[in-house]
């Protein structure tokens, strides 16, 4: 079955991947923190989307598509336009490059983020691997 990004099916597939991928389980074994990925509308995406993931010790405890930001902010908020985030998903844009060139904005503890760059990169690998189709 094609898994199109972004969609509820895609978020569920990512949840399943994060809970079964042994490499991610190993590299993210000390990660503690939830995040929201905010996808700003651009191109074919017409409405802002909020994807919530609760990541804990190499697993994903919960995912949810939200309508707005929650009252209690998660540990990290990642924001990108759909154009940029779809380029990351397609492997056309390196996630660190996206962060360093403001194509992906990060809000949260920079100390924690810089300590855990390998986890972040492996999270993106998992996200790419479950994506078989991109909204065009």
């Amino acid at each position, binding site marked *: 079955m094609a898994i199109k990004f972004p969609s509820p099916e895609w978020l569920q597939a990512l949840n399943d991947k994060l809970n079964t991928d042994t490499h991610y389980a190993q590299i993210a074994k000390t990660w503690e923190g939830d995040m929201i990925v905010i996808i700003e509308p651009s191109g074919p995406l017409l409405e802002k989307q909020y994807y919530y993931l609760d990541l804990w010790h190499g697993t994903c405890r919960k995912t949810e598509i939200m309508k707005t930001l929650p009252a209690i902010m998660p540990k990290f908020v990642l924001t990108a336009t759909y154009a940029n985030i779809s380029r990351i998903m397609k492997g056309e844009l*390196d996630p*660190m*490059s*996206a*962060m*360093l*060139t*403001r194509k*992906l*904005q*990060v809000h949260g*503890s*920079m*100390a*924690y*983020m*810089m*300590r855990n*760059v*390998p986890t972040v990169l492996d999270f993106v690998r998992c996200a790419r691997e479950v994506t078989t189709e991109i909204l065009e």
Partner: protein
Amino acid sequence: MQPILKVNLSTRESSDFIIPAEWERDYLGGASLGARLLYSTLLKDLDPYGPEAPLLFLNGPLSGTSGPTVGRFVVCGKSPATNLWAESNCGGFWGPELRFCGYDGLWITGRAKEPIFLWLQDNLLEFRDANAVWGKDTYESQSIIKTELSISGTHVLTIGPAGENGIKFAGLYCDHGRSAGRTGLGAVAGAKNLKAIALKGTKKIPLAQPEIFGPIRSASNHFLKDDTITQVVHELGTAGVADYADYLGGTPKKYFHQGVFEGVDKVSGSAMAETILVGVSACHACVVACGRVVRLEDGQKRKGPEYETLIGFGPNLLNDDMPLIVRLGEICDREGMDTISASNVIGLAYHLFQKGVISENDIGFPLNWGDMSGVSRLLQLTARREGIGNILAEGSRQFGAHFGAEDEAVQVNGLEVPYHDPRGVSGMALVYATSPRGACHNKSDYFLVDWGQADTSLGLQFFERHAGAEKAANVALHQNWRSLCDALVLCLFGNVPAEMVAGLVNAACGYDYKVNDLLRIGERAWTLKRAINIRLGLTRENDNLPKALLEPLPDGPTAGYVPPIEEMLTAYYNSRGWDSESGKPTPSKLSELGMEWIINDIWNR
């Protein structure tokens, strides 16, 4: 621009120098203008310690405004360490204060008969006796001079004992521990018996179009605040990138001979933030505030280390004791020595001791990796040129040569290599090999581009971090941009879009430059510094890397890799329009840049 104040310390004469308008237009300011101003002076037979040697302090056209990261000044001259072009820039508040005095530069020659310091209050210059502070460290000197002058808001730039004693990597220090550390210009000041320069100004910074400048400045500072690099550097200091640098194998360990060090996690901006960090400090009008304030076990607040100091006295020496790194950095700052060069030459001493090239008879005590007990002593011996310190004070190249092991020194053209290993980020191979002041990470911080910070608005592309010759033109382009930043004396952490920088320059100066014009100004200055160095004896063979960086590491993320430097250099010369055999800019390239006037000088016509 405002005038430059020329001061002859021998005759105690001073005069205003008006910068020719076409030089302002073609070079803008900072190190680029400095190269143009000193071109005819910097010749092979000029003794960097002689009275005729220049010490030129310059600002840029944005310095001292409220723009983004514009608190820096640069000092230029001939380096006693490299005998080549020297420039070193410094943050804090001293540079802006010089502009508040009504001057955009200070051009010092001569030699005072006795130690003196200069006191410039607006345009009133005094030569003051510095015997009371001669021999004092940089922190004490600043404090004593400020007390003597008793005028609030005075900023003091000073040398320490290292500068007085002609240490080849002595720097100049202001605003507590802000330093112009590289290339040994503190020793040039010491040779002039110039201990310090104190400033207090009340004038306004000139702007051609203040009504246009204001909104762009405001927008650029807001932009900067939201930048990811700004957030990392604000929260974690410049050492905030240490974790990622290590992940990619870019952090040198055991004097560039080891790829893995168990204690590396204890030595980073994150580790500092989690342990001893109690505050931050900023330069003039800066929203980044990269400076660290830490508290150690004695309860005293101190300057915390930036990336280079942290790695130099940390993994480079197989040390993971963060408070000790803080203290070693403070010794360097107080004595007035560059932490990169100081930690590098001490790393070389450890390396040669372990190889059996030097012994306890040479040093006075053993230097075993991981045993840090002798490092503070080595630093103090160096600053005073006592015992082995007298040889360490000459820098890595001379230290190695003294013991018949010059090729073991990790330096390029006499300047010690900073702590971004080209085996982790290959672009730094070209940067170190071709920098106009010897191995330098600030003439192009290309490691950030190799990590992904490729600003496409400048025409930069992203190449894989171990790519080779294909990234040569990209490196040259980035050098041109950073050369422009050096003209403006912009801090490299001011990650502001190029279009905004152009807008600020135009509003400040009344020009109508586009980004491509600024890149051309950067390229012109880069080429001019190359021409200066060619006249000082630099040849194609000088564009190289030390042996250690051309040997693969045995372990770690870059094990087995060495940058293909020869292929990269050939591609680099081609991309620059330089002759690939001699490394000289070709006459056609010089003409294209409007620099016909130096063709005869470097082609011996």
